[in-house]
């Protein structure tokens, strides 16, 4: 249980500030497709008996970068993402079905299985968290400027492509380390729901990132314990708690605004 809690806290800590950028840049669908691509990575890793984590990072990264490269050259980014993301998850599921021998618990990859987190998993999760956290904090200002306007960033001497790649690589890592915790289907929820909830009560980008992290951590702790007491699946329980936070803040926002 301690390991599960630490894993949950780690992933939500990394997901929340990154999630703010996903929300600001309207990349929710991009993030979702990246996460779906991880399923193909998982399937390939299982087939060739490689590390699932590495496979997931690699395939997510390849998909996200190739879609980014194609962006601008085509006007149908949305469609392209839909094709790439869903093809990957479908292909992943098909490949997994061919693997003989050990029966693979698909649900564990799709919605996570946090109680099965090993010590090594935990270490990998926190390494991933460390990498994402350092990247985001180190590049915070340029990332924010690129989010506001790529031209302003260029004029200031930053390279928008480089900054965008930091977001892409962070997304791929967060998806991979989130597999054990909430699975490829729900990781996007851990990215955007805390960020969206925090938006209601914050006035600066920094405070939004900070509050989102707190909401994310609270959600994973409360969700984990709720799952324990009600005997429900952990990943979805964590996401449900995060959604409750969102609705709470949404309602508060509506009530407060109507009063004034």
């Amino acid at each position, binding site marked *: 249980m301690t390991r599960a809690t630490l894993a949950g806290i780690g992933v939500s800590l990394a997901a929340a500030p990154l999630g703010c950028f996903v929300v*600001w840049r309207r990349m929710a669908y991009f993030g979702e497709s990246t996460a779906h691509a991880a399923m193909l990575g998982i399937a390939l890793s299982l087939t060739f008996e490689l590390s699932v984590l590495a496979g997931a990072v690699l395939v997510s990264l390849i998909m996200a970068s190739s879609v980014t490269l194609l962006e601008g050259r085509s006007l149908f980014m949305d469609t392209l993402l839909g094709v790439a993301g869903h093809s990957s998850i479908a292909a992943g599921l098909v490949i997994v079905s061919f693997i003989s021998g050990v029966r693979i618990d698909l649900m564990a990859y799709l919605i996570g299985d946090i109680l099965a987190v090993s010590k090594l998993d935990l270490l990998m999760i926190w390494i991933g968290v460390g990498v994402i956290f350092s990247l985001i904090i180190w590049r915070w*200002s340029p990332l924010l400027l690129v989010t*506001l306007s790529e031209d302003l960033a260029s004029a200031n001497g930053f390279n928008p492509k480089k900054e965008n790649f930091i977001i892409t690589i962070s997304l791929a890592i967060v998806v991979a380390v989130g597999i054990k915790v909430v699975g490829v289907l729900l990781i996007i929820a851990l990215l955007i729901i805390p960020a969206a909830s925090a938006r209601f009560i914050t006035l*600066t980008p920094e405070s939004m990132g900070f509050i989102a992290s707190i909401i994310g951590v609270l959600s994973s702790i409360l969700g984990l314990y709720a799952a324990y007491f009600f005997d429900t699946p952990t990943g979805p329980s964590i996401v449900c708690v995060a959604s409750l936070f969102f609705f709470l803040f949404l309602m508060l926002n509506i009530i407060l605004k109507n009063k004034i």
Partner: protein
Amino acid sequence: MLIEISKLEVKYGSKKVLQNINLTLNAGEIVTIVGPNGSGKTTLFKAIIGAIPFSKGKIKIKPNLRIGYVPQQLKVDQTLPITVERFLKLATRDNSDLKKMVAFLGLKNIYREQINNLSGGQMQRVLLARALVDAPEILLLDEATRGLDQPGIAAFYQKIENISKETNCAVLMISHDLHVVMRASDRVICVNGHVCCEGTPENVATSPEYQTLFGSNIDGAFALYKHKHDHNHDVQGKSRI
């Protein structure tokens, strides 16, 4: 020399948007770029700030040149909470002059406002402030007066002219407010995919290439320009010393 562009060509796909552009900009110069819609003016700016690649030619920029860029507009996503103050301080090298700039551009009362709540005119002033915070050596203004009314436009360019004189900052601007802009410009460059003509405001405005592009109504604008030189008065009609 701040910027030296020679034989620049920019392509979007297979379409040449700009070709054979030559342009040199020195410290303290005010140069205006005019040209019809879709003539590649903004593309030229984007090539200068390095936001887009170019297919031929050279852009030589003074090393570590501090560029203040004012885009046509800036739309901030509703999900991004950011105050004017935070925006002005974001990724700027040195903001010791910020207070002076805020007072100069009359931004004090909106300093703690959310960017999303600003009007078009307020937003343009904030963008100008942001471009000026870094003590730029060159200002790039891309139709920076969008959303301003007539007195607003005049006041805006007056401020630019003052800043340029005070700090010896070069100004390269794209503008449709020809009669207002030309008064202050050292040079005017007329762009329509290539450089049609360039020179002093008088020379350009009377050149046949320019008149073909902008028609005869420019005579009126030019007359206004002449008129403005004869006697200056402020918006209320009082003459200025």
